[in-house]
């Protein structure tokens, strides 16, 4: 059973309760959105890594040499 925790800041009471049907449906929608967003992040990271590798090859230097130049 998937639960949610609510901390009432006024009383200090902490309640653990099961998700409602509406919350479960929202959670399913959030999963899809998050999967798409992570894919975008990973694609962007891969593209950046490939561009960097290509530039180093073009310049004929290693990554350590590039860091030395930029230091």
């Amino acid at each position, binding site marked *: 059973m*998937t639960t949610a925790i609510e*901390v009432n*800041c*006024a009383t200090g009471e902490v309640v653990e309760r099961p998700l409602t049907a509406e919350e479960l449906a929202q*959670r399913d929608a959030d999963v899809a959105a998050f999967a798409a*967003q992570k894919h*975008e*992040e990973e694609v962007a990271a*891969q593209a950046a890594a490939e561009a960097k590798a290509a530039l180093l090859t073009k310049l004929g230097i290693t990554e350590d040499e590039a860091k030395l130049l930029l230091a």
Partner: protein
Amino acid sequence: MANTFVKIASNTLTATTSSVTFSSIPQTYTDLVLKISARDNNGSNWGGGYLRFNGDSTSGNYNGIQLAGLGSSVSNSTGSGSWGTNYMLAGRANGGTSTSNTFGNSEIYIPSYTSTTTQKIVSSNDTTENNATSALMAIVAGIWLSTAAITSIEVLTPGALYQINSTFTLYGIKKD
């Protein structure tokens, strides 16, 4: 200049959960700071981290910009398209495949949360360092397109569960 940092509430998990909500937030401070040390069980080195204010999950009510360091690369993305439209992307956790017993570290700053005339701007610094080649560090500038005072903050990880010993602490900051 703020000179008072007061702990409003804190919760350290003793069981897994999908979300933690701070409700009935007192309206007596100037700004809020939410500090999160969390780990979830999603199948990645870095996990989710969404915020929703006052239970608002209306599409189009959130937006933001993220600058992220992923491994040895840097990327940026905006909150249009596939993310950020009905939640704010902030408060990342270490994911399920990250080095064991490591937790993400996030600090989320929310100024003027009691205002009823301005939309809410949020800044977040998230790190998911785990001494491995795959980790994420993100700086987020987010906006909740509402002039309502913030009375509750929900922190959730989509499709995963926060793990035991994850800690969520809400502070109030007040001027003199």
